[in-house]
């Protein structure tokens, strides 16, 4: 079965510091990968998605970036965090074959607080 890991679970960072969140998927090949953010009291906002190694699509202009160095690894980064970057960050995966075509499955999330 497929498993998705995210770390760290919680993170407190000062404004202006860098960020690196990592997501890995096990049990599937060639997944599409996604980064979402949930701000307090809001729905999930798609930040980036990737359909393959090195292929990144950005949905929202911001000071965040994403990279996919390996098939099942997705990284969210920032060079300088802003207060508005605080939120709950979720990684998700999907595949477009089989019965649940395109359904996205989420990791446990990272709670980021920028002070």
């Amino acid at each position, binding site marked *: 079965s497929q498993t998705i890991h995210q770390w760290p679970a919680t993170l407190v960072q000062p404004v202006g510091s860098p960020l690196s969140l990592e997501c890995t998927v096990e049990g599937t090949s060639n997944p599409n990968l996604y980064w979402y953010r949930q701000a307090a009291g809001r*729905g*999930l906002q798609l930040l980036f998605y990737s359909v393959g190694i090195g292929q990144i699509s950005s949905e929202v202009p911001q000071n965040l970036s994403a990279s996919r160095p390996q098939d099942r690894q997705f990284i969210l980064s920032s060079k300088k965090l802003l207060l508005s970057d605080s939120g709950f960050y979720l990684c998700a995966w999907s595949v477009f074959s089989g019965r649940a075509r*395109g359904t996205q*499955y*989420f990791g446990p*999330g990272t709670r980021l607080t920028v002070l």
Partner: protein
Amino acid sequence: DQQVKQNSPSLSVQEGRISILNCDYTNSMFDYFLWYKKYPAEGPTFLISISSIKDKNEDGRFTVFLNKSAKHLSLHIVPSQPGDSAVYFCAARARYNFNKFYFGSGTKLNVKP
């Protein structure tokens, strides 16, 4: 521009009764709809989905109804259980981009024992 809306931020239901969670959308190009359940400090868990070619999909205690003319989606939970207490998100995907899901803001369901 929020294309998927959940207008009820919270819902309280007695155990054993039916819970009905509602969702409205504006984009007629949406062709796939999903419901997710989320506990605090955890990622959303996929519950049930429905394609736009159907108007109903059932899985155990969960049934999703789709009314395309009204652009309305609902999730019925029967019977409701205390363990169902969580935030429920509806999501929709457009046929022109299989990778982009639009999420509602969520409805917090409280099932009272």
